[in-house]
C-alpha cells in the first residue's frame, strides 16, 4: 500500500485519511479474480473461432482450390496449437457462463423459484443436444 499524500497534514477538524491504492496486479491476488480475468479474456478466443468459421465460409465460396488451401493452413502446427489453446478457453467460457446463468435468470414456476441446478442443467442439456445435431450433420446426415 502506498500513500498519495505522505506528509502528515492532520488537523483536528479534517482528519487525514489514508487512501489505499489498488495494485495493478489486483487480479493475481485471489483465484476468483484471476478466474474472472481469464473468463473475460476467453471471449477473445470465442471471437477467434467465429473468425475462423467466417474464413472457412469465404474459402468455400472461392472454390475447391481455395478450400484446399484453407485446409492446408488449418493443418499447420501453429494453427493447430492456437486452436487447441482456443478450445480450452472456449470450454472455460462455456462452463463459467453456464454456472453464472442462474444469477441473472430468476425463473419462477408455479410460484416458486426454479432451483439453480436445474437452470445450469438445462444449459448443459441444450449444449449436448445441439452438439449431437452438429455431429450428425458432420457425419453426413
Amino acid at each position, binding site marked *: 500500500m502506498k500513500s498519495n499524500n505522505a506528509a502528515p497534514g492532520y488537523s483536528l477538524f479534517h482528519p487525514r485519511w*489514508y487512501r489505499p491504492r489498488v495494485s495493478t496486479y*489486483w487480479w493475481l491476488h485471489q483465484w*476468483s479474480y484471476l478466474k474472472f480475468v481469464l473468463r473475460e479474456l476467453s471471449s477473445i478466443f470465442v471471437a477467434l473461432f467465429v473468425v475462423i468459421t467466417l474464413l472457412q465460409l469465404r474459402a468455400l465460396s472461392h472454390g475447391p482450390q481455395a478450400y484446399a488451401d484453407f485446409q492446408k493452413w488449418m493443418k499447420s502446427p501453429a494453427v493447430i496449437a492456437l486452436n487447441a489453446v482456443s478450445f480450452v478457453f472456449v470450454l472455460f467460457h462455456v462452463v463459467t457462463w453456464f454456472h453464472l446463468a442462474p*444469477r441473472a435468470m430468476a425463473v419462477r414456476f408455479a*410460484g416458486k423459484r426454479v432451483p439453480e441446478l436445474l437452470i445450469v442443467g438445462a444449459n448443459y442439456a441444450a449444449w449436448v443436444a445441439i452438439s449431437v445435431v452438429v455431429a450428425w450433420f458432420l457425419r453426413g446426415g
Partner: protein
Amino acid sequence: MAETIKLEVARYSPERDAAPRFETFQVPLRKEWVVLDALNYIKDRLDGSLTFRWSCRMGICGSCGMMVNGEPKLTCATFLADYAPAPVRVEPLRYFPIVRDLVIEMTDFLRKLRAMKPWIIRKEEKSLPEGEYLQTPQQLDSYKQYSMCINCMLCYAACPVYGLDPLFSGPAAIALAQRYNLDSRDEGANERFPILSQHEGIWACTFVGECTEVCPKHVDPAGAIQRYKLTAAKEWFKSLLLPWGVR
C-alpha cells in the same frame, strides 16, 4: 498457560503514521471466540487505543466488517479456531479510505445508497382509514432476499470494480434499489431507473460475482444487478419500439 493465537492487526494513526502498519498481539485461543472477541480482548487488556467499529455481536448491525486474512468478513461471525494455529491478519475493509486503525470512511456508500431512494415511493398515499398495503406471501418472496441486507459493505470490499472505479454505485446500493423495485407496494421504479441505468449504475458491473460470495446474509447482489441489466435492456427496447404514449 492456555493456548494462544497471534493476531496481526493493521494500525493507522492519522497523527503519527504516513501509512498503515501491522502490530502483532497474542490473544487466548478459545473455541467459542470470534475475531471480534479477540479485538475486544486487545482493547480491554493489551492496548486501549485500538480503534474499530462493532455493536451487536450477532450479524445484524453490519458494523464489524473487516478484512480477515484478505477476505471481507463480519468479525463477529468469524471464528479464531478456523484459522489456528496460523496467525490471523485483520485489516480495515478494502477500497475505503481509512480513518484510524480498522475504521473506514463510509460516507461514499451512504451517499450512493441514498441516491437509490431506498424507501417505498407511492404516487398517491392511501389514507389511514383505507388500511394497510396488503401483500401476499408470494409478493413478499420476490424481494425478501434483498431486504436482508445489513449495509455491512463487505460486498464493496470484495468488488474490484468499486476499487478501480470509485464512481460505481456498488453491489449493496443496487440490490437495495431492487429490493424496492420488486416490492408490490412500491411505485418508484421509474424514479430509480435513471440512476440505476447510467454507466456508473448497473453497467459498470462486469459480473465478477464476488459480492455474492462474501455476503453474510445471502442477498446475492450480483444476481440483483444482472437481473436489472435485463430490465434496463427491455426498457431500452420498449423505448425504441413503442410510441411515447404507450410506454
